[in-house]
């Protein structure tokens, strides 16, 4: 009966588990928990059913589903089938908590017969400490970059976001704190966002550009020097916006170091400075012009009595659908799907087409109505039908390819490379290092930091942290192939994960399966199993075969590409 249902539900590509199941049925020798897990079916309503559900029935989730379905119809494409549990589970872990699931969790989830298990998993992950850690990483990188700029406290920035995401603070409060921050960079970690934009003496141009781009999804940086060629931003608007930041100054404190007898860097802080009246800027013609603080036409008293950044924060967070809400939704959507409603995600303006305007507006409004509840927004997205589809395309939707500039239709989930942090944390999970307790928290953090720095250094530095994923440099490949982290992972020293696994009970097949489950969160296909067996048969040193197999799995594209 199991096989029958499987065959009925799978069409075309969906053969991985099917083929394995057949083998399991015919050979009859597999009765371990692992195999039982693999036999668990994907949700019954695979494919073109209109009634997909993860078990959650929020009205906004239904709205997402129906609006996305409408565009499938309008564009004459068909969605890919619903992802198998194994595929979906690995993805939702990476997206919500920033690492792959541990093998025990995979087994439990695949064996679970609860129809609402997907939505329950989403809830569990939102409550997991990994949620706070993951989103702290993401926003720290976005705000201050991968490599900490001079006179910026990474710890301070992380502390701020840990509290923000840990307590699920309303996003508008978070933005407001970042824009208005003052004081010591560790006591008020929010200051580090602006400190990171104060590297050059540029009259606040970088603060202006980054704040609008990151929180409002608007690219105004080129209007620093000229009117925007495509959208409505004019040069004077850039400087009107800029004038909000002109009361901001930083003080870099130094202190005397007893040991060396020298002055060394101490803390930095943001202070207010007296500034009133207009700012001056130069038109391309060479003409000097003035700009007073104004937010989309709303003028602000330019006197000294005005705290301009407070005014800015008030205006940025006011209204039924402010840009900060829309921009956040767009970023979140892209985080889960690989592409946002606009491409690029931080350029929401009239010259960039929006893939689903009505849905985009609605989600922005609902986000505001929810009280800027970041977890709630994730619930809507992660429980939606399109997010639960496979990342494989079919003939009926292969042309839905935003990577080549087409408007995204979300007929399948687009793959995305892991970020450096996801990769590191996933390797730790796959090697069970998180459970070994070999090193304390601080030491573990230090090791993580060193590895990440090395991994990131193999790129040219770039702004914004979006280059932090595996994008194909040779040093990174070498680091994965021969670096100490993976070397340790495939070590068969006593006490290592691999040693434990290989000296434990179980047949050769079970051991191979477990390696696949550990690294890729799925069972091996029949051909993969056969290939591994062949290696075992031809070797008089089975231990090295398992080692090399595990090495291959950790180094594979399937491991590093979040699908």
């Amino acid at each position: 009966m199991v096989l029958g249902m499987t065959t009925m539900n799978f069409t075309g590509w969906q053969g991985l588990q099917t083929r394995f199941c057949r083998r399991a049925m015919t050979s009859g020798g597999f009765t371990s928990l692992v195999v039982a897990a693999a036999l668990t079916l994907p949700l019954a309503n695979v494919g073109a059913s209109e009634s997909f559900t993860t078990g959650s029935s929020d009205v906004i989730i239904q709205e997402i589903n129906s609006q996305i379905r409408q565009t499938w119809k309008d564009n004459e494409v068909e969605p890919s089938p619903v992802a198998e549990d194994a595929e979906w589970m690995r993805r939702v872990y990476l997206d919500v908590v920033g690492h792959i699931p541990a093998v025990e969790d995979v087994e439990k989830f695949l064996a679970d017969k609860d129809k609402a298990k997907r939505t329950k998993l989403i809830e569990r992950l939102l409550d997991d400490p990994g949620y706070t850690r993951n989103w702290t990483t993401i926003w720290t990188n976005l705000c201050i970059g991968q490599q900490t700029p001079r006179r910026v406290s990474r710890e301070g920035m992380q502390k701020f976001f840990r509290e923000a995401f840990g307590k699920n603070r309303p996003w508008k409060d978070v933005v407001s704190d970042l824009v208005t921050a003052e004081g010591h960079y560790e006591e008020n970690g929010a200051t580090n966002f602006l400190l990171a934009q104060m590297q050059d003496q540029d009259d606040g141009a970088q603060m202006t550009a980054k704040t609008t781009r990151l929180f409002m999804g608007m690219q105004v940086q080129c209007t620093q020097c000229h009117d925007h060629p495509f959208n409505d931003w004019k040069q004077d608007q850039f400087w009107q916006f800029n004038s909000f930041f002109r009361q901001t100054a930083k003080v870099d404190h130094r202190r005397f170091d007893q040991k060396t007898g020298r002055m060394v860097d101490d803390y930095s802080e943001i202070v207010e400075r007296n500034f009133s009246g207009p700012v001056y800027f130069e038109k391309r013609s060479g003409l000097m012009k003035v700009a007073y603080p104004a937010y989309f036409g709303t003028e602000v008293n330019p006197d000294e009595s005005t705290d301009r950044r407070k005014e800015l924060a008030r205006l940025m967070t006011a209204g039924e659908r402010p840009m900060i809400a829309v921009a956040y939704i767009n970023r979140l959507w892209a985080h889960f799907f690989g592409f946002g409603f606009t491409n690029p995600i931080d350029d929401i303006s009239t010259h960039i087409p929006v893939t689903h305007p009505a849905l985009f507006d609605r989600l922005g409004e609902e986000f505001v109505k929810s009280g800027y509840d970041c977890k709630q927004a994730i619930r809507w997205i992660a429980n939606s039908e399109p997010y639960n589809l496979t990342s494989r395309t079919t003939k009926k939707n292969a042309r839905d390819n935003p990577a080549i500039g087409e408007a995204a239709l979300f007929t399948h989930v687009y793959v995305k490379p892991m970020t450096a942090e996801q990769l590191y944390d996933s390797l730790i999970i796959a090697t069970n290092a998180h459970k070994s307790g070999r090193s304390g928290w601080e030491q573990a953090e230090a090791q993580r930091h060193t590895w990440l720095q090395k991994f990131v250094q193999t790129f040219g530095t770039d702004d914004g942290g979006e280059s932090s994923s595996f994008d194909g440099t040779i040093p990174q490949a070498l680091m994965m192939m021969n670096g100490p982290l993976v070397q340790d992972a495939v070590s068969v020293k006593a006490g290592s994960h691999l040693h434990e696994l290989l000296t434990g009970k179980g047949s050769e097949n079970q051991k191979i399966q477990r390696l696949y489950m550990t690294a890729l969160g799925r069972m091996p296909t029949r051909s993969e199993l056969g290939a591994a067996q062949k290696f075992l048969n031809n070797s008089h040193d089975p231990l090295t075969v398992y080692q090399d197999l595990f090495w291959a799995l950790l180094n594979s594209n399937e491991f590093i590409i979040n699908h």
Partner: protein
Amino acid sequence: MSLVTPSGMSRRHFMGHLAAGAATLPALDFISHVKANAADLKRRQKACILMWMSGGPPSIDIWDLKPDSKNGGEFKPINTKGDLQISEHMPKTAQVMDNLSVIRAMSTREADHGRGRYYMHTSYVPTPTVVHPAFGSVVSYELGSKRKDLEIPAFISIGGGGSSPGFLGMTHSPFLVNGTGQIENSDLGGIGLDRLDQRLRMLGTVEDNFIHSQRGESGQSHKDVYVKAVNLMKSKQMDAFKINEEKKEVLDAYSGAPAQGGMMGGGGQFGRSLLMARRLVEAGVPFVEVDFGGWDLHANVFQTLKTQRLPALDAGIAALTTDLKQRGMLNDVVLVWMGEFARTPRINQDVGRDHWANSWSVMIGGGGLKGGMAVGETDKDGISVSSSKSYQPGDVWATVAHALGIPLDTVHKSKNGRPMKLANGGTAIQELIG
């Protein structure tokens, strides 16, 4: 390692050699003959070595001295084999200046380290809308991609930080190595080639399954990078990084005679890095950047130059130029010397010089460019360009492009589709290519 077929040889030509050679030469001799021939062809491939003086070097104390000005400082100019004078602390370089020229009319606009570095590397002013490729990445894209037998990266940066390949993509990012030439993680970590082979075959199974799973291009891109990394691990060309294979005399010449206290200020390192650069160029790498830091001399400029920076710089440039010439490579290898900007003509109260981009010098030579010349000039105090023309980094890189045979009308496309002219539309400097 397979025997490399020389690219400049037709098959018939090659077979002709084979026939003639077989009759007269023992087989082994023949093979070494072909190898030598291939090596010779590689040696004649075009390349550029960028000597990057990070921190911003005081060109007024090196290439464009002002002995009659209050800005002139402590150093005197000396005559050279070329038609120009340089600093008295560059005596060895003076002897090879007939091969090298100095552009004395640089007038750039960025006097901040980060922005200057970006501008001089890319020819473009930094803008948040697009990331421009460093010129090394451009050369990797234009020349490296065509060198099929090159198994190591086409843009190698020794001892310095990275620069971005920008819209040209990660394939053309600089491959960073430290001065020892040890490539991190490039050895097999104790496993043999047979084990590596087993691992790669297992990897192939998983990778190919994913590539064929209808999930777009990224699975294949991942595999491509791994293929390159494995090629690199196995490549004989990796020997180019092993400078210790060179004779001691050669190492000494590049490093300069060990000053008192050993290799002061990392000077020995600069020479060693240049030697590595020569070996890499010989192996077919079209662009090598060598970083030599310690030029941000806000204080105590003359003492530091005299005892640390200039002896190392002098020895390195002289040895490299001589070595390339002796090997018959100087006509094909362009040498460029620059930093993110230079330093103020005015000497500050700490006997230092601060950041200055308005009027300064870049050294360039080799690659068939005219040597022994000063192009343009600055006024008597060195505070502005006094010749009719001043130059931007784009002009320097256009000159390099000309020497390397990259057409100047080449246009690349940024990720958002904007056309980007080679070297920001700069023009090759007429006096140098004339």
